[in-house]
């Protein structure tokens, strides 16, 4: 299944008595009721590591585009109303700033590797601390308490998976702990953020800006306030959107399906 559809519920499973395996695209499995599927004897697979590089690249792209005001700048450069480029039209530098990565898994770590080349100071919050060699390779400092990361970061990047523990991980309290000059970047899942609290925080300038590849729902309803805020960039869940990666995802799903149907061990079984 590509992108969370069809919805796998009791009704669907009952109508497909011969279903042996659900192969899901991407790494996230928050859209699947694993207990339910297991109770019907259906296996589940995903496509974990192949999406990591492109998603990390997009996280960097969003952080840079937001900080340097790329979308606004593009609109100004092509607008028929633009007569000259104002000399005092400025953005903020990513180079040398502090990046706080929430969720230092495969994707989070790849973001850290990229950010290091911009001489960023890297903080991270994770369920567990990474090995010393992994930390020093990217110069990352562990923040056991998320508060410490939020208070010190110029950019907060969310790279956790969605679980009951990370649901609304970033709410009103967390946004208020962030610097008023900070930017929130989300490449995880929309529900990791309390979206209404985010809207309020952006409107009241409690944080400076947000760049989101994921929202809840996707797409947002046409009249949603996030679509109107000037300091927000939203992309349509394109974290893994390169032809090369999508092709490999498809191949992995087919591999898993073939193994599942043949009763063999399923690669990337969840």
């Amino acid at each position, binding site marked *: 299944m590509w992108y969370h559809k069809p919805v796998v519920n009791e009704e669907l499973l009952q109508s497909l008595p011969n279903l042996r395996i659900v192969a899901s695209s991407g790494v996230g499995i928050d859209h699947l009721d694993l207990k339910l599927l297991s109770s019907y004897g259906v296996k589940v697979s995903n496509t974990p590591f192949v999406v990591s590089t492109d998603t990390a690249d997009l996280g960097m792209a969003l952080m840079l585009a937001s900080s340097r005001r790329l979308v606004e700048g593009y609109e100004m450069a092509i607008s028929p109303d633009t007569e000259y480029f104002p000399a005092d039209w400025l953005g*903020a530098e990513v180079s040398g700033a502090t990046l706080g990565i929430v969720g230092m898994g495969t994707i989070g770590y790849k973001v850290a590797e990229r950010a290091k080349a911009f001489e960023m100071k890297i903080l991270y919050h994770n369920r567990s601390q990474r090995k010393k060699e992994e930390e020093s390779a990217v110069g990352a400092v562990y923040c056991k308490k998320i508060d410490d990361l939020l208070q010190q970061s110029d950019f907060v990047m969310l790279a956790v998976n969605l679980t009951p523990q990370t649901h609304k991980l970033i709410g009103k309290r967390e946004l208020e702990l962030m610097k008023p000059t900070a930017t929130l970047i989300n490449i995880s899942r929309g529900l990791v953020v309390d979206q209404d609290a985010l809207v309020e925080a952006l409107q009241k300038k409690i944080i400076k800006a947000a760049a989101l590849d994921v929202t809840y729902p996707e797409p947002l309803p046409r009249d949603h306030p996030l679509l109107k805020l000037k300091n927000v960039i939203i992309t*349509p*869940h*394109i974290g893994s959107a390169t032809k090369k990666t999508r092709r490999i995802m498809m191949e992995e799903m087919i591999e898993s399906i073939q193994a599942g149907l043949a009763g063999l061990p399923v690669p990337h079984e969840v």
Partner: protein
Amino acid sequence: RGIRVGYTPDVLTDATAELSVALLLSVCRRLPEAAEQVKGGGWTTWKPLWMCGYGLSNSTVGIIGLGRIGQAVARRLKPFGVKKFLYTGSGPKPEGAAEFGAEFVPLTRLAEESDFVVVTCALTPATQGMCNKDFFSRMKKTSVFVNTSRGAVVNQEDLYDALAQGQIAAAGLDVTTPEPLPTNHPLLSLKNCVILPHIGSATYATRNTMAVLAANNLLAGLRGEPMPHELQL
């Protein structure tokens, strides 16, 4: 007429290199186009190949002009999984190139082998109009072209043709001739051409530093003293 000239090199290297990479990523992942789809309602259902761009993993990056800014660009691109760096210019720069294992090649070879081309050279009589029909025709159909040097290094009509005919995949320009482009300029109509309003050094921190440096140059000049950064004429 005996007029001295001060300028502000070096202090804008990081900001400009950063913007070059920001532009490259925005172009290859189609960020402005995708953002427009979100706002404009073009995002209806999700399809696996919709809005797909290009990744940097295992790519070859060609840098035209491996000076301070070019090197700072290479440094930032390296951890994105770039397999090979090529560069061209008036001559090889072994010390600068060593950090990236960059190979000095003729302009034609750089065009033929690069997945991403970044132009960070100075505008001189030798580089004027250097990126022209011949150059673009040698580039790969899947390649991305980024210019953050000066508009005049690129032949804009030839670039338009290359983009419109699919000779290259996409382009990002922080600089054009003139700035801004006239409202009916064909480059403005292309979805696969991202244009920025010359913001390479446009950060608060960098412009502050530039302003202070320029003022110090001026004061030194008025006092008849050596300038912090004087252009040798």
